[in-house]
């Protein structure tokens, strides 16, 4: 259970990225967050694992305050939250397996990670994560040699290797072409349904949001402007979220055919 209580984030430049947000996300939900860029989607997601510190209010994950946690405590919270990034954030010069093993760092003693000797059990977990996203045959290939879609699957495997309760995905398909986008979204959906991992995804494209979001949260100017099921979210709702009429750029299929 993720619980935002009057959470606010103001960046040093004076930008209010989150304004007094109150929101609850129960375990096991598949939530899609939509909004224009700059609406606060990324900040919202990063507030959950403390990558962006709050400047007001609180966020708790399973009752533990992320805002108040420091050091080892914060790392323990983070270890149960996997994250997937728009630009994959892989270490391109090293192997796929080493990238996925990054997800096991929280359970690995420092000296072991320094010499690069992970426990066999952790390697097994990483291999299974790769099998789940169907890319295990690439385990010893350098990440740089993979296509964008494959790299994002490695990113998902890295998150899975954490054996998380929650997965955060920040624009996971923004760098991918439409068929690959659907593949990655289906992977996330499967993970949510089969493993019961709470999954929170930032998306720009409305059609993807409607197809994959059990629940849709609309953000505008740092505030929550819509919270409801994907089925209810029609064009008017999106128009409201975006504060303007929709364009072809807002829909994946249309954007792809242009």
């Amino acid at each position: 259970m993720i619980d935002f209580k009057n959470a606010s984030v103001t960046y040093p430049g004076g930008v209010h990225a989150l304004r007094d947000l109150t929101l609850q996300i129960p375990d096991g939900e598949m939530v899609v967050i939509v909004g224009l860029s700059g609406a606060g989607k990324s900040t919202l997601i990063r507030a959950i694992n403390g990558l962006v510190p709050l400047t007001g209010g609180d966020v708790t994950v399973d009752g533990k305050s992320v805002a108040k946690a420091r050091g080892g405590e914060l790392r323990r919270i983070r270890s149960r939250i996997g994250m997937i990034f728009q630009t994959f954030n892989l270490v391109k010069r090293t192997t796929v397996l080493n990238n996925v093993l990054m997800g096991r760092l929280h359970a690995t003693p420092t000296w072991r990670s320094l010499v690069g000797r992970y426990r066999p059990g952790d390697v097994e977990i990483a291999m299974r994560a790769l099998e789940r996203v169907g890319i295990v045959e690439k385990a010893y290939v350098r990440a740089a040699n993979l296509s964008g879609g494959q790299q994002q699957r490695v990113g998902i495997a890295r998150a899975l290797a954490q054996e998380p309760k929650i997965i955060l995905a920040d624009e996971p398909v923004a760098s991918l072409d439409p068929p690959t986008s659907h593949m990655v979204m289906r992977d996330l959906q499967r993970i949510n349904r089969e493993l019961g991992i709470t999954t929170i995804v930032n998306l720009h494209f409305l059609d993807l949001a409607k197809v994959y979001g059990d629940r849709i949260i609309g953000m505008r100017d740092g505030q929550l402007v819509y919270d409801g099921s994907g089925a209810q979210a029609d064009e008017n709702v999106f128009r409201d979220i975006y504060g303007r009429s929709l364009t072809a750029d807002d829909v994946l299929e249309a954007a792809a055919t242009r």
Partner: protein
Amino acid sequence: MTSASLARPAERPRKPPRSLLGPAGIAAFLLITYWAVSSEFGIGLDLGAIVKDLDRGQVILADVLRPDFGFFERTIPAMLETIQMAIIATAIGCGIALPAAFLASRVTAPNAFVLRVDRGVLNVIRALPDLLYAMIFVAALSIGPLAGIMALILFNLGVIAKLLSETIDGVDTGPIEAARAAGAARVQTIRTAVYPQVLPNYVAFSLYVLELNIRASTVLGLVGAGGIGRLLNLQIGFGNYDNVGFIILELFLLVFAIELLSISLRRRLV
């Protein structure tokens, strides 16, 4: 033509005045040069006299350019010592430089204080020439390769930490965010998200420094810090310039060999 009825062409722009820096810069340049060259304030450079005396150097240079290959056997122990010194200094210097570089990069330093202290120390280390370190260590340890090794270690530390910390400044920060999000501690983040990105550069810098160390050995020996330079100094003292020429040639070949080795090693690594 004086016909005023014609449409006046657009006024031509005036030539922009030269920037102040131009004339002032040139004046400053000339002034400094005069000051430095003059015999009154400066070093008293008289090119005419030098041209006149050129033949004094000719004999020596002619000998240097006619190296005595028979000298080879006697250079072996000193050459080995040079190589040993270079290897030890490179290994230790690069070893210390690795953590120093991580502390000197904005990306990986734990806080601004550590960053500033580390950079300050490195800047001071680099402000002094390696030969001065050699002199200091000779004074502290007496003559021998140990003083040379210590001087080279400091020199290497300054070079590698600087080069590497700047490489670290430029790494892709995405993986760092990913590691932090996965709950990794700082050291783990550096090891898994940063170190693999800079490893090829680190190896390249280390090989580069190995080569610099071998080049430096000529001059280290001049102050008694061991290696082939000691032999060089001796031969200069005896006026055996054909032997001097051979030593220089030998060093040149050694450096070239190391360059070839480093190319092949780096190909394998990158």
